[in-house]
């Protein structure tokens, strides 16, 4: 017995010793304000989903950020240094990494994390430590309301969905709708909540609400119920992989009414998977590569040169996110967390590739999304 205890005591004390030794690590403080040539310099931390199932998001985000950093360096007005860390999409890792950025790297602001679930964990911590944090891909409700220091430049479902539903009603004179959503994913569930509210606000008659799960492959049961009800419009909160299959099956069952999707539905993959069946999908998006705007076209072409593919929404939002941080730093005049927070909150009508960006009193983005419709296998702007 004694032996066992001693054994354990050794392990425990070794463990503590190790932890304390680790604590003695780098803690050198203060990201020095104002580098050479009078430019404001600051370290910006990035928490991104770079390994695991969502690595594609992380890649687009870091590409967008790196491009923005390069351009900012060339412009020379603000000198930002990115510290990019991986969260693997896990809330606990996102939290550890945020602590690292705040305490070890001593960043002035943070961009990320990728998922809303991660932001729910990281946001309060950044807020308590007084570090401005900008979500570039969180669309769930209530994210900027976490605290004063929490911002986002990704348009939430609560803004995007009403815009697309409204456009659809205008175009098709819809009165009766059916709703479908994935109920086991935070993203699609948030989209559903926004759809339900939008339908109520716009006085639509809800015929039926059907649910499905991630990875489901057969939606005929739900769709045949919807078909019986004869809706004018189907509101469908799904990610593109499920959404595309739903559309394909719906069209083959003879349901030819337009679909209105959430942000997760907005992907060129839908056209690839569903083919002709994708025609008639309406989505609102902050990002449209074919937008008739010089800034957007410049960004698309430089991004293409650099990374060999077109930037998606996540790349564009991250790109603008870093520009917003840089704008904040420039206006703050020094790399101070509180000054930066105030400067970001005051940004009004910043011209980014997404459009004109401002923040409301919560720190939520205010901008007009573009409503797109798929016609003849192509995304087109709905005017």
């Amino acid at each position: 017995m004694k032996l066992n205890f001693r054994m354990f005591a050794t392990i425990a004390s070794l463990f503590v010793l190790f932890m304390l030794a680790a604590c003695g690590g780098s803690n050198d403080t203060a990201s020095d304000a104002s580098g050479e040539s009078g430019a404001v310099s600051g370290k910006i931390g990035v928490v991104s989903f770079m390994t695991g199932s969502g690595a594609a998001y992380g890649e687009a985000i870091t590409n967008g950020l790196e491009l923005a950093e390069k351009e900012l360096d060339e412009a020379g007005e603000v000198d930002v240094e990115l510290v990019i860390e991986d969260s693997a999409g896990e809330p606990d890792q996102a939290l550890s990494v945020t602590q690292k950025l705040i305490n070890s790297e001593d960043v002035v602001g943070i961009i990320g994390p990728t998922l809303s679930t991660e932001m729910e964990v990281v946001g309060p911590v950044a807020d308590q430590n007084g570090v401005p944090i900008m979500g570039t891909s969180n669309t769930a409700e209530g994210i900027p309301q976490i605290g004063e220091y929490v911002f986002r430049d990704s348009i939430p479902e609560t803004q995007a969905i009403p815009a697309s539903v409204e456009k659809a009603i205008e175009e098709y004179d819809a009165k009766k709708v059916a709703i479908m959503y994935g109920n086991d994913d935070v993203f699609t569930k948030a989209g559903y909540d926004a759809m339900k509210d939008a339908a109520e606000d716009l006085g639509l008659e809800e015929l039926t609400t059907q649910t499905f799960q991630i990875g489901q492959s057969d939606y005929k049961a739900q769709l045949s119920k919807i078909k019986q009800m004869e809706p004018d419009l189907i509101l469908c909160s799904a990610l593109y992989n499920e959404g595309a299959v739903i559309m394909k099956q719906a069209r083959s069952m003879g349901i030819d009414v337009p679909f209105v999707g959430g942000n997760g539905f907005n992907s060129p993959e839908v056209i690839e998977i569903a083919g002709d069946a994708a025609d008639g999908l309406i989505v609102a998006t902050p990002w449209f590569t074919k937008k008739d705007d010089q800034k957007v076209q410049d960004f698309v072409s430089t991004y293409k040169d650099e990374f060999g593919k077109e930037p998606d929404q996540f790349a564009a939002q991250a790109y603008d996110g870093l520009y917003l941080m840089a704008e904040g730093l420039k206006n703050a005049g020094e790399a101070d967390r509180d000054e930066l927070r105030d400067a970001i909150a005051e940004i009004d009508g910043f011209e980014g590739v997404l459009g004109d960006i401002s923040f409301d009193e919560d720190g939520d983005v205010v901008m007009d999304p573009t409503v797109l419709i798929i016609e003849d296998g192509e995304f087109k702007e709905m005017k």
Partner: protein
Amino acid sequence: MLGELINPYYLQVASFILINIILGLSIYVTLASGQLSLGSAGFMAVGAYTTALLTTNFEVPLLVGILAGVMLAGIFGIIVGIPSLRLRGVFLAIATLGFGEIVRVFIVNTESLTKGAIGISGIPQLGREILDKLEVIGFDPEILGLKANQFTFLIVFILLLIIVIVLVCFFSRQKNSRVGRAFSAINMDEQAAASMGINVTYYKVLSFTQGAMLAGLAGALYAHVLSYISPADFTYHKAVEILTFSVFGGSEVVGGAIFGATFLTLLPETLRAISEYRYMIYGILLVVMMAYRPQGVIDEQMMRWFKRRKGRRQQHGTENK
């Protein structure tokens, strides 16, 4: 001086290590009686959701919430443990995996109570609550030269460390007690154990319930450390991760769970410099490990070697597994 020494980042990682040790122990205890359970993520969810709902909706003190979570997980342990008695090996693993998924799907679907897939946010933080209590009696972290934020992490770390020390003491003592030997006997041969007068049903359910309670405790602590939980935290992926802690470290001894949880939590953190490749290394390590040392890093033999080196003679019969 203390203020400069304490970096919340390291304390945060250390806290996760301690929580993972508790999870590793939960697998160790059930494996001790030869039961392979993959339901830890489910029990963790029960513990986490119980305390999260109680503390956020009814302002119950954290201690009560956590204990309620542990108890409820224990009750579920008994409920699942008894019918699972007839199952062994992979069949039990599948049944418990099923339990974990049922819990998760239940949480996803009871939206009115658990907010479904959205998750519960704003769960009281362990460190903050303790600090608030201490401030009432006039304590100020400045006395120790610490910022409030450093203090909260330090106190959480110390609290978790105490809990883990108590648990490790308990289970390493239990191992060599009447109960622990009954577990080992059942693990070796159930029928032989029964013929020697060991109440197999009782001990199997006991070990399963202990595992469930430990997982529930870890879940409850996890909820109060992260202050946000969602069903996505408790998928079968998590269950497998927990199993890995114990299997990698060595499932025969308590030290194995401690080593496995510490090493596997620390590894991805220390490999951050090569971010894209870190999980590849993690994977390779697991494969190599299982090929060359299937019993885990630390096993009985290694423990004995440690003891012998200390010049102690091992007592006869204590290591009869």
